């Protein structure tokens, strides 16, 4: 049994890389990925920092109340319809005096970043005929398709880039200067957004569980396990013409290979803690791991984090309370994240995009909470973003059965992020023409 069972040469020999236009073995499957894993040092100074662009997604699950996140202090309707949970004008952290809007007072972290010119706040984002089911609306955002069908938008981006068809800079088979899977999601399952037809994301919740547990029982077991899972003999015997024709057995060998390689790289990367102290919260922990992976130089292009639940139907609170705590978790973690990235010298490589599946209704309900609504603000972070408040706040008077009318389709934002930041063909990835919002500094 050969040890170097999955060298690039052996993959090419069996016709896998040759067929890369349709099959595409991502670069991180290359044997050199492992070798690089050993060499990855701290990339802490600018000269050593690679210039590849990274996107980090922070998903607020459950439907974040946009109106108590970016407070429309200008609106008497807001105070009339939200007696009990509204944020007073004087409490809000003022963003734009002229528009009369401010941030929830728990978002001091975001305010600091905003003042430093690292935040683009996009108001009134939504989509036509909004769906109020968590499940469905989340799928709409993940697929970038109002019928909520098909692969994820980031998965389609990986598919397009990996196969040499896209013009972007990620994961082409020949670029192997660094290592790492194209997409990493933190969580027990990978989000639909990252599911491609060809490329599958790597997902893990706790890095200590992201490995074969029996390996530590006996070193002979561990080495035999490596032999059994790092091989291409099952794929041998001819090219795999397309993903449809790939047998389940071949698919499983691929998945095992992905898992083994990613496991080594990721555990090694997150073992080195960032120099910045992150808050001991769910999101703080996730972004701390992302910072470590970025520092370790993984070639990963998209990291996906999510936290919640923002489904505040009852007892949502105002300046204090459940929603305030969630927002504080968000703001504090984001601030630590960019502080760390700056210390690493990686801040200009990393854009963060924040969203939730919907906002909440304008009027509060009888339980001092809010029910599922529609449009809400999105935020982009990083020194490269067009900083400031973008787009108008949706009208507080012209409502659609008690809900805000969206003024920006989220796919215009996606198109900007894909085209301008990830240098991908947004029309191809989004399967349609969406006018790209200008997301970068002019």
């Amino acid at each position, binding site marked *: 049994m050969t040890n170097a069972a999955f060298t690039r040469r052996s993959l090419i020999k069996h016709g896998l890389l040759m067929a890369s236009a349709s099959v595409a073995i991502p670069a991180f499957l290359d044997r050199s990925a492992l070798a690089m894993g050993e060499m990855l040092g701290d990339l802490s100074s600018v000269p050593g920092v690679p210039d590849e662009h990274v996107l980090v997604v922070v998903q607020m699950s459950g439907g974040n109340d946009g109106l108590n996140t970016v407070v429309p202090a200008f609106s008497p309707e807001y105070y009339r319809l939200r007696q009990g949970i509204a944020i007073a004008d004087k409490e809000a952290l003022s963003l734009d005096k002229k528009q009369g809007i401010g941030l929830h007072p728990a978002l001091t972290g975001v305010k600091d970043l905003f003042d430093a010119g690292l935040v683009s706040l996009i108001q009134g984002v939504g989509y036509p005929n909004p769906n109020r089911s968590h499940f469905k609306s989340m799928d709409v955002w993940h697929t970038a398709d109002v019928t909520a069908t098909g692969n994820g938008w980031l998965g389609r981006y990986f598919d397009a880039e990996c196969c040499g068809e896209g013009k972007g800079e990620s994961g082409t088979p020949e670029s192997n200067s660094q290592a790492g899977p194209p997409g990493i999601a933190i969580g027990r399952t*990978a989000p639909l957004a990252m599911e491609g037809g060809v490329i*599958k*994301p790597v997902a893990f919740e706790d890095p200590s569980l*992201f490995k074969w547990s*029996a390996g530590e*029982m006996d070193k002979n*077991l561990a080495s*035999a396990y490596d032999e059994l*899972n790092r091989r291409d003999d099952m794929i041998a015997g001819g090219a795999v013409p397309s993903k449809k024709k790939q047998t389940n057995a071949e698919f499983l060998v691929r998945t095992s290979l992905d898992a083994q390689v990613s496991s080594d790289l990721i555990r090694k990367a997150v073992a080195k803690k960032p120099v910045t102290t992150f808050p001991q919260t769910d999101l703080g922990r996730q972004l701390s791991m992302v910072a470590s992976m970025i520092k370790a130089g993984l070639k990963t292009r998209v990291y996906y984090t999510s936290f919640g639940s923002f489904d505040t139907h009852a007892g949502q609170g105002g300046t204090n309370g459940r929603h305030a705590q969630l927002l504080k978790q968000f703001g504090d973690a984001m601030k630590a994240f960019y502080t760390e990235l700056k210390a690493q010298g990686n801040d200009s490589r990393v854009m963060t995009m924040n969203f939730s599946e919907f906002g909440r209704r304008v009027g509060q309900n009888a339980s001092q909470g809010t029910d599922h609504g529609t449009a809400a603000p999105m935020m982009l972070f990083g020194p490269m973003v067009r900083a400031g408040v973008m787009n108008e706040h949706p009208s507080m008077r012209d409502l659609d059965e008690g809900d805000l009318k969206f003024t920006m389709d989220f796919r215009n934002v996606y198109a900007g992020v894909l085209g301008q930041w990830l240098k991908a063909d947004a029309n191809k990835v989004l399967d349609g023409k969406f006018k790209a919002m200008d997301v970068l500094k002019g």
Partner: protein
Amino acid sequence: MQVVKNKSTDDAAPREDEITPSLLPIRREDFGYTQARHLLWRAGFGGTDAQINKLVSWGPDKSVDTLLGFVDAAKRGGTGEFDPIKPDQFDKDIMRPLTEDERREQRRAQQAQDEDTLAKFREERQSRERLDRTQVGEMQKWWLTRMIETRHPMQEKLTLFWHGHFATNYRTIENSYHMFMQNQLLRNEAAGNFGVMLAGIIRDPAMIAYLDNNDSRKGQANENLAREIMELFALGLGNYSEDDIKEGAKALTGYTFEDDTFVFRKTNHDNSAKNILGQTGTWDGDDFVKIILSKKACARYIMRRMYHFLVADVPPDERGGDKNLDGAQQKVLRELGDMLYSRKYNLQPVLRRLLLSKHFYDETIMGQQIKSPVQLVVGAVRSLNTPVRDLTILNDALDLMGQRIFFPPSVKGWDGGRTWMNTSTLFVRQNILAFLIAGKKPQGFDASANTDRFDTDALFAGVPEDSLVAKRDPAAVAMHLLKLSLGSAPDHGVAALQAFMKSRENKIDQDTLTGCLLLITAMPEYQLC
């Protein structure tokens, strides 16, 4: 309308020349270890070496009839004579509605703004909800245990199929006893009559609550149940129109429940004439079901879903159709669908035909299905005889692997196939096997690791007592263990196991065999059956 007869019809078998060749029965001499093993995995949750050899000695007919024997057992005594389900298995009153007295008391408190009493009602409600969540956890363990221990594995396997087909999520209905009742309905008709099952589903409190039919009344028909019956439960996309859904929803108005009992509320029922799938009349919900059953598309759709679960997990094409299946598969499906129709939706004879067919044992079918998480866990215990160790941990692992029973992700159930697998779930799959076999946890060991050791002797139950070679020769041991666990002994597996045994100086003891099993169950091939 008289479309469905509950009575089982046992027509004479069709003449051989009328059957698609691949549906002709497998010959007894072609039914060996691999085929018997395959049958046990697909029609159940796998079997031990001894069980596989038993089936080989029986031949295909007796094997299949034994596996399907639960249908007759169920006819004789409820859910099967070997595994009686006690009526008081679970508490049916945890989520009972308030009594008349309690409701009066609550109303009085509301009018008098008696906050203390109202708080008492709230607390009582919350404590019941907590109890009920505990009970649904017990129910998960109960079903898991049943799947592990039952003498009728196919009954539980098919119940699991129907649970994914008529997917209902406890989280939405928050009534564990209703989940239990639905589970019984699915088990009773698991290989019985689909028509009876569908008629039962529109009267099933869990389903009625899950798809909001309890809010459906004349003039305000809720279309949820009618839509899902047409789209997911019985017909499939392309076999009905939006108008059929609207009219079907009217037919289902007034179908609701009270406590644990189905109720037809005449006053809420829309008695007007409806046109459903081309037939006009003052149809009610039962007529709606009969009209659907009268369509051949229904029988074909059900067969397709069962085929997907039992035979080949080829995902449906974008329109929900069969385009991803090859020509032979489409032919098999068409014929079996038509057979289900002509047998008036009795499943047993159709399943028998399928499980005996050459097609079922085709090389492109055997060993090509990705095990569902339940299949993986229950199958490991049943085929390798591992200790169960801790049902709570097994349940948590099922959740991590994406199959939390009684909590399917949506009304579509579980997509299955490749969607089970990603890098994360792969490690959970490997690690739960290490837990079952060796008591290994991600950190340290389970308390049972030493007290409840994996009995490696049982792995050789089918090997003759005096065959020292098979038990002592490393190559022979490797071949045997691989064939038992994977159905075949690939070269790389034999080599890796031999290398491992050699590292232990070829001492083939309990520890070495345990190590071999840990390795085999961590091979990509182990995810298949």
